[in-house]
């Protein structure tokens, strides 16, 4: 936690610094963005954020799972899952510093 994890508070702070709205309104806008993305996904609509990535909902069929502790077979019901695909811009951004460090070591 701490410096190693970014949270809503950090995003609100960044918006506050960038745009100069009140802290309260900055926090509300961050919440509003997350809620709008969530709502679109709940309605089954994919969300594409250019140079970041896309979120899509996939339907999974029923399958037989196993309780790893007891070995008992249990049906896993059909359900919807969310998948995130990072854009190339984001993938490159994440790898740039990393690959330089690897080459140096």
């Amino acid at each position: 936690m701490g410096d190693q994890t970014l949270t809503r508070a950090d995003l609100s702070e960044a918006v506050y610094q960038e745009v100069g709205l009140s802290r309260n309104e900055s926090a509300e806008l961050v919440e509003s963005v997350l809620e709008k993305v969530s709502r679109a996904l709940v309605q089954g609509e994919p969300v594409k954020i250019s140079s970041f990535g896309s979120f899509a909902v996939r339907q999974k069929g029923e399958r037989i799972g196993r309780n790893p502790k007891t070995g008992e077979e249990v049906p896993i019901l059909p359900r919807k899952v969310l998948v995130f695909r990072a854009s190339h811009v984001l993938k490159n951004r994440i790898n740039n510093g990393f690959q330089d460090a690897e080459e140096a070591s």
Partner: protein
Amino acid sequence: MTKSELIQQLAEENPHLYQRDIERIVSTIFNEIGAALAEGKRVELRGFGAFSVKERESRVGRNPRTGATVSVDAKRIPFFKTGKQLRERLNGAD
């Protein structure tokens, strides 16, 4: 929904803000998430989900078309885990 549609929706709900500022707000949010991931940090947004970075070792891969071996460098992969609340909402437990 695209980024510009998201900006449009926010603009309609916030008529007191300039469209330009809304664009900056949306860009800042996704930019900050990307910057944190680039530094190897986690991003935890309760109820929505968590972004993290996973490391993949270098490996010897194969071109599936030609069968030629190619070396694949070690790399970092961004990963998203859906939050409990959003997962429940997707499955109709709103």
